């Protein structure tokens, strides 16, 4: 009987304890550290406090974080509480881990390390959560076979999807090519306009044939060929590829507010096609095997025959 009374008595105390803890957490939305909780509910012993906290965690009203100085308890917003109704402990654990990864996503192996569950169990849980549309798998661009998981309604970060150049994890090469050509045409046009204006002195002509990345960005956005809005850094990567094509050169000039800005200019090639490339031998795939009097030789060269036709 007495044990009954004792048992009966216990729920009331933890209940009040729980409400107290909840109230405390409500007051400090950023979170309450373990230590401050201890001092606030000094009347109850450790075991009761721990049980109360566990219950709150299970119910999803509270969440546990690891701060720099120990554990921190934070009140959970109601929406998040609602979304995970009908799940059990392990799933909740996994869910919390995924949530903590934010919009970069987290890999299955890392989930396993963090929650110390078996691989098969983790997979089952992940499938479960996915079917409930709580989390989603996003294919990573960096490692094509890996999948990272993140919350369903989060936008994947740029580093995962690759940014403007990737659409659905596919590298958009035609898009890049089109942008490449358009930027080059713009710079070429600018150069020609500068040359046509004969009243300017050479230095002024040279200066007016340069364009900054912002100008190019403006031009491209006006053209409207891009579905995605591009940033100046995107344009700079495109202009860098033009530098690697040898069509554009870059200089850095200091600007009024003490910083330096990059300017780009269309460049004409230093020589026309080299004459060696006009002979069939330069393009011949069996050049190294060719020997006078051999199986492959200049005398019976098919490429030369074709070349001499016209």
């Amino acid at each position, binding site marked *: 009987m007495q044990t009954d009374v004792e048992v009966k008595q216990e729920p009331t105390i933890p209940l009040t304890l729980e409400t107290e803890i909840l109230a405390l957490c409500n007051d400090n939305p950023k979170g309450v550290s373990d230590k401050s909780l201890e001092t606030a509910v000094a009347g109850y012993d450790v075991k009761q406090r721990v049980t109360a906290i566990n219950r709150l965690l299970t119910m999803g009203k509270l969440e546990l974080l690891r701060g720099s100085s120990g554990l921190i308890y934070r009140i959970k917003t109601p929406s998040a509480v609602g979304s995970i109704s009908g799940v059990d402990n392990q799933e909740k654990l996994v869910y919390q881990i995924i949530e903590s990864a934010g919009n970069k996503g987290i890999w299955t192996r890392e989930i396993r390390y963090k929650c110390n569950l078996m691989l098969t169990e983790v997979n089952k849980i992940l499938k479960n959560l996915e079917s409930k549309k709580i989390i989603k798998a996003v294919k990573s661009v960096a490692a094509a076979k890996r999948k990272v998981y993140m919350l369903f309604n989060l936008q994947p970060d740029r580093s995962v999807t690759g940014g403007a*150049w990737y659409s659905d994890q596919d*590298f958009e*090469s035609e898009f*890049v090519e089109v942008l*490449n050509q358009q930027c080059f045409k713009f710079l070429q046009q600018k150069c020609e306009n500068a*040359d046509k204006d004969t009243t300017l*002195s*050479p*230095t002024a002509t*040279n200066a007016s044939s340069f364009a900054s990345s912002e100008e190019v960005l403006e031009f491209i956005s006006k053209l409207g060929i891009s579905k995605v809005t591009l940033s100046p850094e995107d344009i700079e*990567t*495109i202009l*860098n*590829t033009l*530098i*690697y*094509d*040898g069509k554009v*050169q870059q200089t850095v000039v200091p600007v009024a507010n003490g910083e330096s800005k990059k300017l780009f200019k269309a*460049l*004409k*090639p*230093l*020589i*026309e*096609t*080299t*004459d*060696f*490339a*006009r*002979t069939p*031998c*330069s*393009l011949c795939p069996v*050049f190294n095997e*060719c020997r*006078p009097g051999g199986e492959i*030789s*200049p*005398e019976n*060269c098919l490429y*030369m025959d074709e*070349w*001499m036709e016209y």
Partner: protein
Amino acid sequence: MSSRECLLAYELLQEHYGKIAADVASFLLQNGWQPLRYIALKANLKLDQVRKALCLLIQHKLAKFHVRKRKIVEYAINIENVLSILFHPKFIYTVKLLYGDAAELIVEEALQHGIILMSTAIKNVADRLPDENGSGKIEKAFKDLVQTHFLQREPEVEKNEEEEYIVPIFTQNEADLYRLPTLSEESLKRKRSDDGSDEPKAKRLKSEHETPSVKDDGVYWSVNISRFQQYFRDQSIVASVTQRFGTPCGEIVRAMLRISEVTTPANAQSTQPISSAEIARSLPQKLPMEHVEQHLKLLSNDEDQIVQLFDDSGSGGLYVVNLKNSALALATATVLSYVQQRYGSKACRIFRLLMLKKHLEQKQVEEFAMIPPKEAKGYLYHMLAENMVIMQEVPRTPDHAPARTFYLYSVNIQRLSRILLVKCYKTCTNLMTRHNHLIKTNKRILDKEERITAIKVRVNATLPDADEAQLEEIEEMMTSSERTSLTKHQHCCNKLHTAQNQLLNTIFVLDSYLNALSSA
């Protein structure tokens, strides 16, 4: 001195001087300095033949000799001069453009004879030119060529009384290099023996000749190949500057190079410093002074550094043309153009990326070049397989495990220009082989054509009023199908010759770059 060069030299010598000279040359190329008897022994040739071949080669400055251990005379081949046989047509054409027909014939004579007396040259050219007062013009042309250093004087034989010397010793002052002898009208008409050979005949001294001595006896002239090379180099620099920066800048660079034409030695790294005032003065179309200065400033700000600011002193600043940088820029452009033609523009982008960034991993290459990863891998490995691109392994662990090793790709322009030069030589050999093969296969038709032309000439000479029917009959000896194959043959030969000439440009650019590197 690669094996490719030796093969090309063999082909050239066989074409121009015959099989024996070519065999002697190839033996010497393979074995270095060799005495006369040894050559005859090992190359299975008669002593006389070898002697004559060596005579020929030395006359044309293709071979040289020296004495070893005071008793043995050894011979070797001068490979650069052999390969510059390829450039002879270009020399003649250049001189024709610059100084006219008389000068063209003078240079042609000089190239044919190797070394030549001034009087001989003038006399031969006068014979060939139909002009009556030609000799004055020819002499003037000769003087022009010498003054601009296209012809140079050969070293003279030292006259010594002792019998000790086996080979002639040559002496020459710097000042004498371009000094003209005085020549009178009479001397041009006198006959003289062609005393061009300085070849030692075993251990005998040269015997004195009895012919009347001419004022310029013993003063021989030859074509100054390095001067021509300098000229071609200047042309290519001006052409590339005009292509990239426009005509005014091209003119400025041309003026700068013209001013320093005769003052700069052949293998200097850069020209003499020239002030912008002097440049502005020597421009053919006058530009305002500020424009000239601005153009110079723009040129010197370019990243290739073809024109550099030497110093700020002097009116408007002193500028130099940096020949080493321009050789590098041209060679790089050649290599890039080759890569673009052979592998495609995307591969060329990867190539230039590696050139700019020095060392990159494969992943970084894909990222910077904005090319789909699979394609980028394909291009990169294709270029690696053909040695355009070098890979360096940087291990992280002592056991070089592939998963834990960095693989860095890079590009070395010097190595590549050497590879490309050897390829050019091989291509040249291939073109010549194909040409010979064509001539052999169409020998029958060519012979027939020759016979018909000979008959026509004979008929026209003997019967000036040959009637139509006879001429037609001669024409009909050649069937129409034979005629078409003849035209086709000529077309093919033309194409091969043109390709060969164009190839020379590339060879020249790469060769001058490698020479600039080795002389630095």
